[in-house]
Each structure stands twice: as structure tokens, then as C-alpha cells.
């Protein structure tokens, strides 16, 4: 007949390896070759440069709404780096750096953000899901994939990405709970970038950390400095190894920051202070890692140029692609289009035939079309 505290008490750990000056905690340093370190940096840099290019392309009206990743390179690359090609990556909509690292061609991403269906097609041998836009809805897919891996007895791990805001959705909860009950090889990577559009974390949840949400499902939760690529790598490595060994799921919270706009349709000056951004710019994951590599003399010369060239080539390929053929919209609704749909296709074909040939590319938005908010206005 007691009032007692249940034991053992619950705990959540915090991990960081590099400080903001690029100094290393050698005891915690993950085992990575020099080539790995260079590859990590290159992938982060590519993410950053592509990001900047995408925002410019959007401003020029060459692609539509885009969600920049600036500031989150370490969270994405440090985690995705732990995956094998045969593992599965399940992105949300803000993982361009990780997607490119996983092998998505940059021009395909451009197609995607230009509103072309072609941009959503993973390669036949690629174990990546396409971008999911409804927040948190991809998380049960990751758990189902992991279940299928286990069911088939395959040797693969699933890594799923989402934001701090996503943790408020029912799908996050249900996916975590199923993962716990089924004990499947899935790693949940939350990029806690402090904001869900204009909503700061403290209005998103009353919990102290995102990591502690794992306790609700009896799972390990780990908080990591998400601007420290080595810490993210170490945490993800541990979680991926655990999953692969059959020891179940992990929730990793990467504490990071969205340095840019939510999307190109957003104006963050409306809801957050410049100083906050300045403060986080001091912790820029790219700078921090560059300093570290400099100290170890691992920075490659000419890297920026090579990365920019790669992007420029992709942009050229994207722009040289033939116009989007409207008739293809009927192709992938069903394995075999039903008669009613074929009739609609025929009607369209007759119209297209009668009308002057469409150039297929969307014409610049008509004057009276609604710009997504802030489309022309925002600065960052």
C-alpha cells in the first residue's frame, strides 16, 4: 500500500563530439577514415550549395516552392552516412542533402520542385522513398518497410526523417508505438530545427526534449548536437548497428536550426528574431566541421568549384529536358487504366491534337495568380 517511485527511473542522454570551434572529444570520436571525413564534408557542402542554387532558381520562377536545408547539413549527412545502399531511407520534404547523398540525381530533384511527376521516380534499384509532403505520414511507412525486412529475413535497416513539428501528429505516435511493439529495424531521426514554420518548439510541445518522447514507447531516445556531424554520425551508427543486430528501434533527436526560410513561400522575419538566427549561425555545422578538417589538414582544394560544376551540369540537364507531356498523367494512376480513364485520355488527346502544340512547360504564372505567400518578398 505504498506511494513509490517506479524504478529504474527513465533517462535520456545527450551527445556531442565536436565543439563550436571544431575541437574534438577524442574519447567519443567515431571511427571514420580520412576518406570518410572528406566524403562527409563534400556531401554537406553539396547540400549547402545546391540549397542556395535552388532558392535562386525558385526566385527566378524556374522551380516552384522549395524547402531549404541550410543549417541542417550535419543532421542529414551524419545520419544518412551510416546507411548502406541496401538500407532504406524515408525522407520528409527537407532532406535534399541526404537524398543527393543517397544517389538521387540532382536534376530529378529539380524536376520534382518544378512540379513534374518525373521528379518523384526513384531508380529501380534505389531503396529510397520519394519525398512525402503530409507531415509525419511517412513514419508508418518506414515501420512497415522495417517489418517487411524482418518478415523476409533480409539484412537491412530503415531510417526515417521528420521535423520537430511532426512529433505532434498522430502518425508519429502510432508509428513509434508500432515500431516498439514489433521491435523492427528502424531508426527515427528527428531534425529538431526549433521551428515548424512560425511555431517555435515550446508552443509545439511541453516536453523538455524530443528524445524523451521515446519513453512513451519503451524505446531508447538520444539527444544529439545536430550541428555536429561527428556526434550525429556516432549516434546514428549506434542506432543503425543496434537495429541491424535485431535490437530494435531508436529515436534520435538532432538539435539543429533552420537558418533559412521554411520554404521559399515563407517570411521568417514575421515570427523570429534576427539575433536568434545570428546566434545559430555561430554554430553553423559546415563551418564547424571545416575548421576541424582544416586542423587535420583534410580540406580539399577546388572542392567548391567541383561541387558547383556538378550542380550547374544538373541544372543544364534539367533545363534541356523535353516538355512535360500532359497525356502521361494517365499512365500511373493504375497498373492498367480502366475504360473510363482511357476515355478521358482520348478526350485530352483529341483536344491536344486540335489545339496548337503545348510547350508543356508551365508558362510563367499568369499575372493574377496568387503567389505563394512571400514568394517574391523574402530575403533569406
Amino acid at each position, binding site marked *: 500500500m505504498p506511494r513509490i517511485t517506479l524504478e529504474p527511473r527513465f533517462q535520456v542522454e545527450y551527445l556531442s563530439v565536436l565543439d563550436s570551434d571544431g575541437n574534438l572529444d577524442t574519447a567519443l570520436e567515431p571511427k571514420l577514415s580520412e576518406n570518410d571525413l572528406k566524403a562527409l564534408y563534400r556531401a554537406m557542402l553539396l547540400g549547402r550549395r545546391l540549397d542556395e542554387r535552388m532558392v535562386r532558381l525558385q526566385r527566378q520562377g524556374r522551380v516552384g516552392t522549395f524547402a531549404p536545408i541550410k543549417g541542417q547539413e550535419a543532421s542529414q549527412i551524419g545520419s544518412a552516412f551510416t546507411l548502406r545502399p541496401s538500407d532504406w531511407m524515408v525522407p520528409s520534404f527537407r532532406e535534399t542533402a541526404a537524398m543527393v547523398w543517397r544517389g538521387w540525381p540532382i536534376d530529378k530533384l529539380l524536376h520534382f520542385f518544378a512540379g513534374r511527376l518525373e521528379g518523384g521516380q526513384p531508380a529501380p534499384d534505389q531503396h529510397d522513398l520519394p519525398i512525402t509532403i503530409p507531415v509525419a505520414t511517412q513514419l508508418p511507412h518506414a*515501420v512497415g518497410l522495417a517489418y517487411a525486412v524482418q518478415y523476409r529475413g533480409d539484412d537491412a535497416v530503415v531510417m526515417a526523417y521528420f521535423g520537430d513539428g511532426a512529433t505532434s501528429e498522430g502518425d508519429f505516435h502510432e508509428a513509434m508505438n508500432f515500431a516498439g511493439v514489433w521491435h523492427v529495424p528502424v531508426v527515427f531521426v528527428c531534425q529538431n530545427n526549433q521551428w515548424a514554420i512560425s511555431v517555435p518548439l515550446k508552443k509545439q510541445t511541453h516536453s523538455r526534449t524530443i528524445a524523451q518522447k521515446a519513453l512513451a514507447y519503451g524505446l531508447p531516445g538520444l539527444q544529439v548536437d545536430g550541428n555536429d556531424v561527428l556526434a550525429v554520425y556516432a549516434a546514428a551508427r549506434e542506432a543503425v548497428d543496434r537495429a541491424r543486430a535485431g535490437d530494435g528501434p531508436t529515436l534520435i533527436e538532432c538539435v539543429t536550426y533552420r537558418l533559412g526560410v521554411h520554404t521559399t513561400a515563407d517570411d521568417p522575419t514575421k515570427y523570429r528574431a534576427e539575433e536568434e538566427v545570428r546566434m545559430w549561425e555561430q554554430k553553423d555545422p559546415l563551418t564547424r566541421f571545416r575548421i576541424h578538417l582544416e586542423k587535420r589538414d583534410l580540406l580539399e582544394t577546388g572542392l567548391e568549384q567541383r561541387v558547383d560544376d556538378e550542380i550547374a551540369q544538373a541544372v543544364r540537364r534539367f533545363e534541356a529536358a523535353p516538355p512535360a507531356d500532359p497525356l502521361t498523367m494517365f499512365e500511373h494512376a493504375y497498373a492498367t487504366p480502366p475504360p473510363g480513364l482511357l476515355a478521358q485520355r482520348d478526350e485530352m488527346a483529341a483536344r491536344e491534337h486540335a489545339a496548337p502544340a503545348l510547350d508543356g512547360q508551365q508558362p510563367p504564372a499568369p499575372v493574377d495568380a496568387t503567389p505563394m505567400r512571400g514568394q517574391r518578398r523574402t530575403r533569406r
Partner: protein
Amino acid sequence: MAKLNMVKALNLALLEEMERDNDVLVLGEDVGVDGGVFRVTDDLQRKFGSQRVIDSPLAEAAIIGTAVGMALYGLKPVCEIQFSGFAFQCFHQIENHCARYRMRSQGRFHIPMVIRMPYGGGVRALEHHSESEEQFYAHIPGLKMVIPSGPRTARGLLAAAIRDPDPVIFFEAKALYHAAKEDVPDESEALPIGRAQIAREGDALTLVAYGAMLRVALEAADILRIEDGARVEVIDLLTISPLDRDALVTSVKKTGRAVVVHEAPRSFGPGAEIAASIMDGAFLSLEAPIRRVTAHDVPFVGFAREKANVPDVPRVVAAVRETLAF
């Protein structure tokens, strides 16, 4: 040939498809140890193990969402939602993902899954246990929507749904589960999805029905033949979407008149598409407006008033007579 009721016929289809294909698995609340609240999955867990017949936690969105993940991997999950009234919890996973993954990935992925749900009235159950929500799925491109009308079509269409490469919403009329036994072939059988059947031939009027309403339509047709000497053609839709417009139009071109029967509320319901499609294809043959005999446009009525809400034989007979007299 074995005589089976619809529960047993569905159970047989599941058993056969699971034996045929290791990628088929069953997932839902209480589908395993308990065999489903209506016993449709009875004994499957004992036969195939708890990894293949999964008692899931109580969360419809995750049932569908994880099944989408399994389907992306190449498995063929057959999900059970305990009652169709609880499927709105997973409606986003159905609309956002089941229906779209083939399109979104331009064919790299597809979703070969089935979502089974009991629907409709007739079991004296509480709110959300007696509604008829087929319209919501019929309007989602990328999905197929199937409703068998008895043991044989249930078995044949469930087999077809499981083998179909696209996601199929499969409604099972609770009122039919134990209603009647039917001969079911010994060999496994898959009936074509997308094809309506003529349940009774006639020339006076086309009566369109599906699921539990087929019985009502057939009884009405009997009465009309006996009392009015009218030979009513009864069409059993079987697939709601994609709609078999050819079958409807061909029939009405012959009969010139149509009445549609369903348990869903009338406004913006499936009868509207059926009527509009018939008008579209058989306008010049139409000799009367197409009447719809349906439940009323009210949220729910409780089972004490259910009989007055769901179409019954007298209402159908009256609507047909009015249409014939138009």
C-alpha cells in the same frame, strides 16, 4: 462445390491466397488470436503464425500506414478495419498514400494491398457500426472499390483484390455475413474487378444495386414480376469504382428506365454517379428520370430506427412503379 456463408467464403479466399503466395499477410485489430470480430480471419493465425497474421495495436492510421510500407517492399498486406465507421482514422493514409504511390513514384512503387471492412446495417449495433461509406472511396482516383453481394462473389472478388496490383477497398455487408449459404466452387476462383453482373434479366427497367441491397432489389423484382408483370433487370454492381458504365448503359438502352438502390445517404452519394453516367451514355433511351432509393441525409439514426432509414422492398417497389408509370 461447398455450401458456405459469406464469412466462411471470405475466410476460404484468405486461406487460399495465403497458401498461394507467401507475400500475402493479414493485419488488423483482433484478426489473429480472436479471428476477427466477425470471424472472417478465423484460424489463420494458427495456420500461418503471428508474423503473418498480425494482431496490431489499436490504431487504424498505423495499420494502413505500415501496410503501405510493407506493400512498398513487395508484400501484399490484407488489412482489416474492424468497422467501416472507424476508417476515417486512416483516411489520410488511404488518400495521401495508398491511392497515390504508383503515381508519385511514376511506377517505381505500387501498392498491392487490400483493405477489408464490414459496412452497413442489420446487426442492431451502435453508432458508427452501421453506416455505408463507399462513396468516400469511390471518389478517390487510384483506388478500386469492391462490394460483393454474397458468398460466391465475396470469395472470388477477395481473391481478385488480393492479386490486383493496385489498392482495393473491399466492403463486406455485415447483413450478409451469415445471411445465406451459396455454392462456392472447389477450385480457387478470381472474379474480374470492374465488371458488373446481371443478376436478373429483364426489359422493363434497370434496377441497380450492390452489397446487401442486392437481395432487396431481387425481392422487389420478384414482387414486380408477380404483381405487375414487369420484368425488371437487376444489375449487381460488385465493383463500385471503376464503375462498369458499359453494363449500365447497355441495360438502360434496352429498358429505358432505371432505379438505383443503396444504403448510403442520398446526397452526393454513389447513386448520383450511377444516374449521371447512365444519363450520359443512354440519354436518348431514357423515358423517365432515374430515381434513387437510399438512406436519408441524416448523420445516423440508431438501430431502433434503422429499418425506416435503410431501403427496403416496399420502398424499392414503389420507386420502380413510379418510374414505370412516369
